Each structure stands twice: as C-alpha cells, then as structure tokens.
C-alpha cells in the first residue's frame, strides 16, 4: 500500500534506531498519546530496540479505553431497549461496563451492530424508520468531524430517529493533566498524528512553552515513530522545547479547516471524566444546544449515573504512565484479554492488551514467580 508500507523499511528503521542511540547522551522519557502509536511500538518491539536510549511511557491515547464507565453503562441501557438499534465502532463491543458489555447485551437479544463509519449508522436509521438508531460517538478530535457530519446530515436530511451517545475527549487537556501531576516523569511527547491532521498543532505551542517539553507531531508507522522519537531526543539534547512536525505528509499547521469548522458548529467543549484518570475540565466534546435533540441522553431521558471503578484495576495509573502494564499485580493473572478488569486490557489498542498480546515474553508480570 502506497504511503504506508514504505514506512516499514527495516534498513531505514535500523538506521534511525542507531541515530537515536547515538544522539542520546542520557536516557530520556517520552510519552505517546495515541493507541495506534502504542500498538506499533509494542507490536514491533520498538521500546525493546531502544531500551537504553529512550523509555516510552504509553499515555491515555485510546479513546475506547478512557470512555468513562458511566457512558458504557448508558450505552448498555440503550442497547437493551427493544426499540433501539445500537450502533458502534467494533472496538467498543467488549469494553466492560460496571456489569457487562455490549457483546453480552447482544447475546441477550439486544440489537447491537458494528459499523465502520457514522454515516453507515445514519443510513441504517433512514432504512429503519420504525426503530430508533443510536450511534456511540466516541473518539478523539480525529473522529469528531465524522460524528459531527452524521449529526449535521441527520438534520439536513430530516432523520428524526437518529441520535448519538457522545463520549468525545480531546488530547491537549490530558497532556496538561499528566504534566501537572506530581511525580510526572514525562520529558517530551509524541503527539497523535491524525488528531493533528484535523486540528493542526497550534494548541501544543503553549504547552511546550509552559512546561518546557518538546512535542513532535508523529505518524503511526515504525519509521514515523522512530523519526518522531529522534526529533524529540535531538530537542532534549539541544535543550529546545518546541513543537515540530514529523508527519509532514498528512499534517499542516492549520489542520483541516472545514472539519474543524463543522465540529465547532455541532459540538462544544465540556468537562469530561476519563476512565481511570478522573474528571479533566474542558477535555470533552458535547452537542451544542442547537443539536440537543440528537443527543441520545436527552431523547431517552438517561439519568446521570455515578459508578465506582474496580479497586483491583490500576488502569488509571497505567493510562497516566505511572505504572507499566506488567507492573500491575493483576496483569496476566486476574486480568487478561479474556477476562479484562479494565478497558486497557480489552481494547487491542490499550497498553495492557498490547503488552499482553505482543510483549509478554519480555516483561515478566509482577505477580509471576
């Protein structure tokens, strides 16, 4: 595949690895905040190959993993209703709520359908006028334009039986929360490439300046990530703390303006709870009052719930980069992809699942003999 597979060239990768190791005069700690980047790093063993030069901490980059328990429970409530066809991206299906997950609701007779695009959910609503179709609108800023378009089109085409259950989160406030937390060890960031494709990178300038950390907008293939790490390490060695763009083939400083415009029209910033982390002010997107009639929470009069997370699940510490998955006492023992305690083990993008599926050999679990 063009513009994809070239960025997996092993010769160039090894050259970049040598460069990074050669440039780093001391061990630096970087964080990536993107599930796709985590996936590539752990799957290719990049952190193993860079062991001495760089420590990679896997940040809360999986919007599926950080969807708060309350929103999952609301999704389960809706999916259980006989008058509702509940639609969702595939990776949400096995995320555990406080009792069960969407897949189990489906086993019990709930109508749950996986869709590839939010527009498919809208088509489903058009084709099934006698049912309510609800779409689980999760994601970072990358997915917000798609979800915004679905809502916008529903209004434009007049589709009254379509609504969205929103659980959007935005990246910069999470980065600030991590940098602000006591005991933070992160010295530089790889910013999520496709979030920046939409948003550009101007939001990161104040963060880089205030906290004096380099932030490199990075892609997802091994060469992208290695180049991004190299650029960050170079900055750290040179005492710089700027925002740079590695992912030049897909990211411009202005981002994708029409996408941002529609997102701003349909959504507004709201406070959002991040599973395992807690409330981060102004870190989420919610529907604007003008589009409130497409809000599933309003349409179905869903009450506010408060749910406590399992005490055995250390997802929060893993998501903040304080603990590595294999350091969690439950990892691989009471918490496995088959029986997950928390979201980072369920979603294959989650750090815990990535470690379990790909990295189990290198990292002996804390509880193992």
């Amino acid at each position, binding site marked *: *595949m063009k513009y994809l597979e070239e960025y997996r060239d092993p010769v160039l990768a090894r050259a970049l690895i040598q460069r990074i190791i050669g440039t780093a005069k001391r061990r630096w700690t970087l964080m990536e905040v993107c599930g796709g980047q985590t996936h590539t790093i752990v799957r290719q*063993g990049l952190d193993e190959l860079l062991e001495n030069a760089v420590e990679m901490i896997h940040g809360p980059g999986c919007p599926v993993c950080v969807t708060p328990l309350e929103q999952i429970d609301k999704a389960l409530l809706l999916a259980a209703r006989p008058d509702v066809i509940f639609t969702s991206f595939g990776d949400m299906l096995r995320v555990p709520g406080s*009792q069960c997950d969407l*897949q189990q609701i489906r086993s019990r007779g709930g109508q749950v359908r996986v869709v590839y695009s939010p527009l498919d959910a809208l088509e489903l609503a058009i084709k099934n006028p006698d049912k309510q179709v609800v779409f689980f609108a999760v994601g970072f800023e990358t997915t917000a334009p798609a979800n915004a378009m679905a809502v916008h089109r529903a209004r434009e085409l007049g589709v009254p039986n379509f609504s969205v259950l929103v659980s959007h989160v935005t990246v910069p406030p999470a980065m600030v929360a991590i940098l602000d937390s006591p005991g933070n060890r992160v010295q530089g960031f790889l910013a999520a490439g496709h979030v920046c494709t939409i948003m550009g990178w101007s939001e990161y300038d104040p963060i880089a300046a205030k906290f004096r950390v380099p932030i490199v907008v990075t892609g997802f293939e091994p060469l992208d990530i290695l180049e991004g790490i190299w650029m960050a390490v170079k900055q750290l060695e040179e005492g710089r703390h700027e925002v740079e763009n590695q992912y030049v083939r897909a990211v411009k400083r202005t981002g994708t303006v029409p996408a941002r415009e529609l997102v701003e029209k349909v959504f507004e910033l709201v406070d959002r709870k991040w599973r395992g982390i807690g409330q981060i002010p102004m870190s989420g997107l919610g529907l604007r009052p003008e589009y409130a009639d497409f809000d599933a929470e309003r349409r179905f009069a869903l009450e506010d719930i408060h749910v406590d997370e399992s005490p055995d699940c250390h997802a929060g510490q893993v998501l903040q980069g304080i603990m590595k998955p294999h350091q969690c006492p439950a990892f691989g023992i009471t918490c496995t992809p088959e029986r997950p305690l928390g979201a980072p083990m369920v979603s294959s993008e989650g750090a815990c699942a990535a470690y379990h599926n790909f990295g189990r050999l290198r990292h002996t679990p804390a509880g193992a003999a």
Partner: protein
Amino acid sequence: MTDSIGSGGLVCPVPMLETDRVQLGHGSGGKLAARLLKERFLPHFDNPILGQLGDAAVLTIGGAELAMSTDTFVVSPLEFPGGNIGSLAVHGTLNDLAMMGARPAFLSAGFVLEEGLPFDLLDRIIRSMAEAARAAGVPLVTGDTKVVERGKADRLFINTTGIGALIPGFRPSPERAAAGDVILASGPIGRHGMTIMSVREGLGLETELESDAATLFPLVELLRLAVGEVVHVLRDPTRGGVASALNEIAAASGIGFRLDETRLPVPPTVRSACEMLGLDPLYVANEGIFLAILPAGAADAALAAVRAHPLGAGATIIGHAVEVHPGMVTMKTFLGGTRVVDMLPGDQLPRIC
C-alpha cells in the same frame, strides 16, 4: 453488584467476568471456544477418542482404521466470491479428514432450511456442493433435511460429516510437533476471512478478493508421497487463523513456535483490507491452505512437492519450532524485534484506533 440495568425485560445481573450464556465469541475458534468445549462438553463425553481433540476422530471398526469428522456451517452471507456455504461445507469436512492423514471416502449432509429460502438460492448451493464433492471423488451417500419457521435459522445451516480410510504409516497429529521442525504454509493466508468480511453488510468494502476454499487432499497426497510419515502435524487454519492453529498445536505438543514476519505469504489485497479494519492477517480464517509441521531436513522436498500443484504454488516456510518458550507462539518482526502471537479470546473486532 447485582443491580439490574436496562429496560424492556433485558437485564444484566451478572458479575462482569463470568457469563451464563453462549456468546458469539464462543464460536470463533479462539480461547472462549476452547473453554466452551473443555468446560461444558468434554466432562460429559469423556472418552479417549474424543480426548484427542483432533480435526477428526480415529476409529477402528472390525480391523479397518477409519477417520470421521463433522462440521456445521453457518456462514453469512451464504454466497461470497469464490464459493458459498455449500462448497465450503464439502471442502471443510473433507479437509478435516485429510489433516488426519485419511483418504476421504464418503460424505453425509444435514440441512436446516429456513421457511422462505428461495429455491434458486438453494439450487446454486446444492449445485456447488455436488461439484465440490464430484471433483474430490467423494459421493454424498446420506443426508437429512429439516425446515424451520421463518426467523429460526439464518436462512440455511449445513452440517457435513465425512468418513475416510486412514493411510497406513501416515499419522499426523498435533502432539508430534518437535524441536527441529519447520512450519510450511501451503499457500497465501487470510483470503477466506477477509473475503467474508468485505462482503459483510455494514463495512462496505469492495475488492477482488475471493475465498480460497478448496479440497486439500490432492495436495496432501503429493506431500505424503514426497516425504511420508515425517509429516508430524497437518492443520488447516480455519476459524482463528494461523495464530490460533499454531497456539493449539503448541499447547498439545509442548513445543514453542517462532514465526518470521517477513516470510508470511499475505496477498496485497488481504493486507490492505486488514490495514483498513485494523485486523491482523494471522487471525483471519483460511479454507484452502494447510500448515504442515515437519523436520527441517524434509523441508525442501516438501516444498517442491506442494509447489508442483496449482493449489500449492504459493507454499513457503513461515517459521520453525523452538524450545525456549514451550507452548507459546512468537514472531520475529521485520524490524528484528519479538512479539508474542497469542490466542485471541474471541473474534477480532474492526477497530478505529
């Protein structure tokens, strides 16, 4: 926590980790499926033949050594590029027999038809079955048909059972995998599963992909004639893909396997479709290839024999047995790192991240 949530009579009063009922993941050939078998079925049907858990059962009746295998086909959609549920039902069961080292001899078929199934669709399926069986030289000798009310079956379910004669001196079996073995894949991986995915409603992918469903016995015969009884294991990696099949064999034999990512024969279109959905080709179903595990010394002869047949043109060695991590499957990535290739708990799900 036992508060129930939900309305319309659907509640979820169970603790998160255990389920009290069958889920879709139980049918996908992964960990859940293995648990279903082990925890619910085996305790009641405990006998040494079943305990082998091979693709087929080895039976002795009056001195004759036979193999018997059964499989039920519930694929949706019923028709797909490269075949349909009928041809799949024939190839699948005949391949299970071939994987045991048996020459398929007879086939039976049971049909559950949903009221309202159009005859022209049924005819196409029956014709495909007949064609597949005829090409394999295996007659359909007995069968059964039931009709259920509209809504009680997803249009058509087919069960096929096959009987074959075991070939003396040829007994591949999962426990026989040993140190010094290599893994031979008879052809490209991921075609069947991605074909099904791409025609499934809701994903909207358009491709030239075709299922690889085919009867493998002729290819197995060529392998057997070339290297004979040193073939330790034969397995067709259907549901759960190459990864699941190797994990099962690793568990049965106590041997570890190490794959080489640069040697995996993934066709470009399969790779593209997997990229788009965030899926791993190692876990995608195949219906027209086998994995043969045999001593490294026999690899060249095996490859030459298999490649001589059109079905085996893409045969290649994809990895080897190791002793360092018994029972586990790992892969050397193209960057030279190592990753674990685990069993998945259930189906792979298309992802957005």
